[in-house]
């Protein structure tokens, strides 16, 4: 088997928060606290979790917008933290992003052709005629006629803008696209389009996705594997369908129980978690989830569970197993 496209190993990201004026006793926000995962070429990994669990920090680390406090991120076998100059620029060409809100991620003062063409110019230095041809191709890929290139973003609806953002992310022949909640801001009837579009693009171009979302059904639909994150740690990683059918970690179970039914008579195991996600500044000792866990044992507050592989491809961090 080839090496995975992206390999994240024991990555931590701590943010210091200003303590007193003289810097004594600075507290740390442990946004990402030792996570490991891999993404193969042409594969989609789903990353789910509630707000504040470190999903977005993880995406920034992958995008090399933040450097990890510890651990390593390897892309095509090379450590991203050590990339410099042209190599780093090439990494940024190959790893692109689509953000949640298409209203703030496209510049209102640029024409669509320039928005999509700018990364091509910046990275490849090709002639403007070539850029125009590539832009036309990309627009067709996401279902527009090429002549929309002269329009401005305000002439498009939310779903259309998100398609433009996808075209921009693909403009530099990216190998990995980080999708940070790409459908959360869209209407239900439009979401399905964007998800289907992302699927067909992946089938055509073989690009990999890191799909970050809180909509479990959408994640399970688009990703082959899903990773569940809680307070900076991965608590469970498994094949998406396996995870839906047999969630093992109590937090994953609660997440699935909390996802809404698709029809009125759907029976759901009711697990209503008490309390809210604790602060990442001072996370609970032992298993981070134990204060809210309905199955917590004395051991859970003392010893932190490791992420162990229970069956092929199904890893879980819980003392119950």
């Amino acid at each position, binding site marked *: 088997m080839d090496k995975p496209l992206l390999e994240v190993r024991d990555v931590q990201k701590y943010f210091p928060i200003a303590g007193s004026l003289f810097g004594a006793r600075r507290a740390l926000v442990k946004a990402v606290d030792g996570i490991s995962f891999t993404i193969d070429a042409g594969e989609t990994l789903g990353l789910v979790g*509630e*707000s504040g669990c470190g999903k977005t920090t993880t995406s920034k680390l992958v995008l090399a917008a933040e450097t990890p406090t510890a651990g390593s991120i390897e892309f095509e076998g090379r450590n991203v933290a050590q990339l410099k100059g042209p190599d780093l620029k090439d990494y940024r060409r190959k790893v692109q992003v689509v953000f949640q809100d298409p209203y703030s991620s496209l510049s209102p003062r640029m024409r669509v052709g320039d928005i999509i063409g700018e990364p091509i110019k910046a990275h490849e230095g090709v002639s403007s005629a070539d850029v125009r041809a590539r832009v036309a191709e990309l627009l067709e890929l996401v279902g527009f006629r090429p002549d929309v290139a002269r329009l401005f973003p305000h002439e498009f*609806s939310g*779903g*259309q803008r998100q398609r433009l953002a996808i075209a921009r992310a693909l403009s530099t022949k990216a190998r990995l696209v980080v999708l940070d909640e790409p459908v959360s801001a869209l*209407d*239900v*009837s*439009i*979401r*399905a*389009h964007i*998800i*289907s579009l992302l699927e067909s693009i992946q089938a055509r171009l073989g690009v990999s996705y890191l799909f970050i979302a*809180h*909509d*479990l*059904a*959408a994640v*399970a*639909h688009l990703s082959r594997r899903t990773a569940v994150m809680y307070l900076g740690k991965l608590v469970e990683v498994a094949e998406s*369908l396996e995870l*839906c*059918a047999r969630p093992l970690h109590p937090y994953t179970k*609660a*997440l*699935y*129980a*909390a*996802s*809404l*039914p*698709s*029809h*009125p*008579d*759907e029976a759901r195991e009711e697990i*209503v*978690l008490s309390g*809210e*996600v604790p602060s990442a500044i001072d996370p609970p000792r032992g298993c981070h989830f134990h204060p809210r866990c309905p199955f917590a044992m004395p051991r859970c507050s003392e010893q932190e569970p490791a992420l162990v592989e229970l069956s092929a491809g199904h890893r879980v961090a819980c003392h119950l197993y």
Partner: protein
Amino acid sequence: MAALLRVEDLRTYYVGFRGTRVVKAVDGVSFSVEAGETFGLVGESGCGKTTTCHAIVRLLAPSARIVSGRIELEGEDLVTKSQGEMRRIRGRRIATILQDPMASLDPLFSIYDQVAEPAYYHQGLRGRALRGRVRQLLDAVRIPSPELRMKDYPHQMSGGMRQRIVGAISQAGGPRIIIADEPTTNLDVTIQLQYLTLLKDLQRATGVALIFVTHNLGIVAKMCDRVAVMYAGKIVELQSVRGLFYRPRHPYTRALLDSIPKLGVRQPLCGIPGQPPDLADLPLGCSFHPRCARAIDRCLSEEPKPVALNGEGSVRCWLPIGDAAASG
């Protein structure tokens, strides 16, 4: 039994500069809500669901006007009431929960002040009785140690807690009906479940009716007894929840149901082609026809009227799903 709230042929338009642009946000909406039931109002953004709610409590933006129709609360028409009279109705008989709890709580007043206000004005409680009522309301929405927390300010609370406080405020005047406009959109999934469970419990305890405005059909499936689906300012289908999920009659409802990914099932998703229409420039005939796979010639020219379904409810379509004989 007479309905608690009856909305009849309500039309609310936004009129732009010098009447050049008329946005028909609510265009002939009729429905009724019985005491103690949960009524869902579903639709995509811009379909007029929020304007409908604002019209009911008469809190419309200055550019919006109720053009015609009746809103009857326990037999009284709210459309003809003055704002002074409405002030004695809002909070006491109809309460609202809005989407963004940070914007609906005043950052300069303590939780106690904000929860106590409706009970002070509408129930005339004072002193110890008022304090007891606030504690009881905070207890009911499961705020831990209410005696201490009632001295706090909104910024000291998390998003889920703030939304629960808004829930407590809506209960404080002892209303018969609560309009909840996308109350869980800003909450995380596990917090959302907590909140929905809480609303159900409150409803069971007080017998209050709920109008649940949402774009999320999952919430409808979990919470509602009857549902109205809105599209371009009109109710296109009104049915019991089970009827809607098992036997949708309007092509738009069917398409909405098909566009949601189902957990653990990997079947192709069918989105709805095209965009929701511009409410200032609606297509002729049925507003949905440009996006409808079943459209016939008649849909392009004539607007369908609501047709009663044999069980209960109605559908606005020339060719509803499941009765081919009804075509014209």
